[in-house]
């Protein structure tokens, strides 16, 4: 007879009441915490500035900087009166930290604006002279391979970022592709005077490259995170959670550009080392990670697919106070457009929603419905912009249903929605319905609306978050005819014939062969990293934050992946347009996307 004890050999009472109470408390507190987060989402105490989304353009209250007064449009700038930026893009926070020690640092003194300007002007001049009509990325065979950030963080010199190894890097490590084609089209045409305020333009589809004769030296004027042979950058990414369904592949796009650049010898002899940390699209966790990046001395934060944490960092002033460039973001939240150190490449969510509303209205819609994600800020902002645009045009929002992501069923919400839209088996009472959801939530919404016309409208639209093959494949017939808008040129006929678009597909597929290359956030990450590399290239070999800021504030970036992106000191809406694509799904399967021939439609408020 076996008498070895089980956990409670002394009887049930041996399990302490204290343990049970603790368990109950923990679970109850967990739910309480979740509820508190949901009910009071803006933990920083700052409310989103919805005045910026006033479609009338009458108000331009202060954004994150709280200046309270809109800056006058700069002469020759290309944004309209409804501009919602108010900062002046000052560069007072440039660190100009000198890299010393280890033989890898420069001892250049910190410079003032004129010095930066003259350096930039000379750089631009030499670049123009040596690169006109040529590709920005040279081809290479072999060469350096991409470095796994988990092992490749350099720690030479005091300014190198601290790699304590306590972060889990979720990046992909790709070995060098010896067959890099480097078939970039376009040329670098850099103009600009010494002050760096001119309209410098750049184009290319493969990222920047080293200008002829550019070599790093000990006298370079560089910022923290830049060594003699590396430029250390970091980014938060989303590998799990609700956002993973559309954001988890973004690091692949980032690395596709970096691996190519590094194989070609880096930018002016400096490899770009990227460290990524997963924050699960959690705002608090993302903000803390970004703060750590800043403290660790990374040079810049390119792309940053995890918009929630970035948004918190922007609202808290972390980015502006540190003066760290954040280049190539996805435009999910409006705060990305209100910081002098952030340069989005994407069309803002609020812009896309206004474009959708106008497109629907122009096509006869007068009654509208919207289903939106109420956990993440993009849902709140996008829904608000949509509703205001509809009302401004004279339409009526009949159904306005926020839903929580990650639920198994939305029966009650579906009932509310379908009642409001008066959806029946014979038709929908809403002329146009928009789904402002992430793919996994949209899929569950579909499941709770299996009936004819349920959960949809006479015309159904989707935000860029739904522009993935994976979602369309899962959605199938339910999504047939859905119109999804994006601010890019996706690899869909006839746009896939563009050289830059084809190159993008080739590059990301070389990183991961089965990747959903039509995922627009992947494409945006690729483009965003290209822009970052270009900005660094323009400043090389004196890679410092002030120069990058000036370069970006005067850049007109031409690419096959999007319309021309133009940033200015007082305008961050470089991409103000979106175009529509229709889901073709019949017979129980997804048949592909069809270009609606809309062209790039402009945000009516910008």
């Amino acid at each position, binding site marked *: *007879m*076996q*008498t*070895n*004890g*089980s*956990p409670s*050999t*002394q*009887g*049930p*009472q041996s*399990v*302490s009441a204290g*343990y049970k109470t603790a*368990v*109950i408390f923990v*679970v*109850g507190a*967990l*739910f*309480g915490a*979740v*509820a508190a987060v*949901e*009910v009071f*989402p803006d933990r920083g105490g700052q409310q989103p500035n919805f005045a910026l989304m006033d479609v009338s353009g009458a108000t331009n209250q202060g954004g994150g900087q709280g200046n309270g007064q809109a800056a006058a449009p700069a002469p020759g700038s290309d944004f309209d009166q409804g501009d919602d930026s108010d900062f002046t893009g000052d560069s007072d926070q440039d660190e100009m930290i000198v890299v010393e020690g280890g033989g890898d640092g420069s001892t250049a003194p910190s410079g003032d604006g004129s010095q930066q300007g003259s350096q930039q002007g000379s750089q631009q001049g030499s670049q123009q002279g040596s690169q006109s009509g040529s590709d920005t990325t040279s081809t290479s065979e072999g060469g350096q391979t991409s470095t796994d950030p988990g092992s490749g963080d350099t720690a030479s010199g005091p300014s190198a970022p601290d790699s304590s190894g306590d972060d889990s890097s979720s990046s992909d490590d790709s070995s060098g592709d010896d067959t890099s084609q480097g078939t970039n089209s376009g040329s670098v045409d850099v103009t600009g005077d010494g002050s760096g305020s001119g309209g410098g333009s750049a184009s290319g589809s493969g990222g920047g490259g080293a200008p002829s004769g550019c070599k790093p030296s000990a006298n370079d004027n560089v910022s923290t995170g830049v060594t003699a042979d590396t430029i250390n950058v970091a980014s938060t990414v989303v590998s*799990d959670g*609700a956002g*993973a*369904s559309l954001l*988890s592949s973004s690091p692949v796009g980032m690395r596709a550009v970096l691996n190519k650049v590094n194989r070609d010898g880096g930018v002016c002899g400096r490899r770009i080392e990227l460290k990524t940390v997963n924050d*699960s699209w959690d705002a608090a966790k993302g903000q803390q990670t970004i703060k750590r990046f800043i403290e660790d001395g990374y040079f810049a934060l390119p792309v940053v697919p995890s918009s929630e944490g970035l948004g918190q960092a922007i609202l808290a002033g972390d980015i502006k106070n540190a003066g760290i460039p954040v280049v190539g973001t996805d435009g999910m939240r409006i705060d990305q457009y209100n910081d002098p150190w952030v340069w989005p490449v994407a069309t803002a969510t609020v812009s896309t929603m206004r474009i959708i509303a106008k497109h629907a209205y122009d096509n006869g819609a007068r009654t509208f419905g919207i289903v939106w994600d109420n956990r993440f800020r993009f849902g709140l902002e996008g829904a608000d912009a949509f509703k205001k645009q509809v009302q401004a045009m004279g339409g009526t929002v009949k159904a*306005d*249903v*926020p839903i*929580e992501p*990650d639920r*198994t*069923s939305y*029966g*009650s*919400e*579906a*009932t*509310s929605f*379908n*009642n409001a839209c008066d959806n029946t088996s014979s038709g929908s009472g809403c002329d146009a319905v928009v789904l402002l959801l992430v*793919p*996994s939530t949209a*899929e*569950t919404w579909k499941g*709770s*609306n*299996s*009936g004819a016309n*349920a959960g949809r409208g006479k015309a159904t639209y989707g935000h860029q978050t739904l522009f993935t093959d*994976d979602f369309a494949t*899962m959605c199938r017939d339910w999504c047939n005819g859905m119109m999804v808008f994006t601010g890019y040129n996706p690899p869909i006929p006839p746009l896939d014939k563009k050289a830059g678009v084809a190159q993008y597909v080739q590059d990301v597929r070389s990183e991961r062969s089965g990747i*959903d290359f039509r995922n627009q956030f992947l494409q945006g990450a690729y483009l965003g990293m290209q822009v970052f590399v270009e900005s660094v290239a323009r400043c090389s070999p004196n890679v410092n934050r002030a120069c990058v800021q000036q370069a970006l504030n005067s850049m007109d970036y031409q690419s096959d992946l999007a319309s021309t992106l133009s940033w200015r000191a007082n305008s961050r809406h470089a991409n103000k347009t979106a175009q529509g694509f229709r889901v073709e799904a019949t017979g129980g399967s997804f048949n592909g996307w069809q270009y609606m021939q809309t062209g790039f439609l402009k945000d009516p408020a910008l």
Partner: protein
Amino acid sequence: MGLIDVLVGLVLSLPLVGAYAILAIGIVMIYRASKVLNLAHGVMATFPAYALYTLDGMGMPLFAALPLAIFLGGALGWVVQRVFVRPMRKLGETAQTVGTVIVLGLGIAIMATIWGARPLTGVALFPEGYITVARSTIRYGELGLFATMLVLFGALSALFRFTDLGLLMRGSAQNPRAASLMGVNPELMTSLTWIMGGALAGVAGIMLAAVAPLHPYILPLQALPAFLAVLLGGLGSIVGAVGGAAVVGVALGMVPLIPGLLHLQGAPQLMLAVLAMVVMATRGERVVATDVRGGIV
């Protein structure tokens, strides 16, 4: 909000009730056997769903793949108990609970590595189709989830009440020393309970994956409301677990229909939090009594 709206809300809540009840039953069974709250139950539910998805993709017929996937769920339960829970016994129940948290994190990471972070569509066990309820729809798979829960609840109740095995399991859980003196191996009973709990979790996960995104992060978290259901119904009672699941499921399903609460962000979670606090305040000590008085059913 009229009577019709209440009835509609109740019907629309059935899928949630079914899902949480199956998960809660498994949690209760495991707790009764080991006095450990298995926080890895969501992972134990998700892994078999992925296994079935893979087996189906390999061409295995459903009649073979389904039992195999459920068996894998049971096997996972055994592994968790033997590797992460039992060795921590000397350190106490809290340490054992922490062990299940390790399984939770490890399991999510492994599943994400193997199957990726893209949501998949699980294998459908019921025909495609739906019934219409007040301009919403309930899919056959969701109804099947609720029906399966009822069948399992009935079967387990019968097992524990009317069979020798059930009697052995109840006795071993209630008084392991006495059971061992009667020739029953309490360790074996504990392991068997974990296997059954894992299999139950697998059933829940497989059925949930057919109606919700199969995702390494999303699906395991569906077990979170099930823990609250267990607390509401009592840690030691399957009947209580089902009752608690009904409360939780209806709360989550009904709240959006209440005028004014649809646009209140976090309203369902707030309601559940208040409910949890009420439970803490009113029956925290009575949870112990439930363990003493009640059997596993």
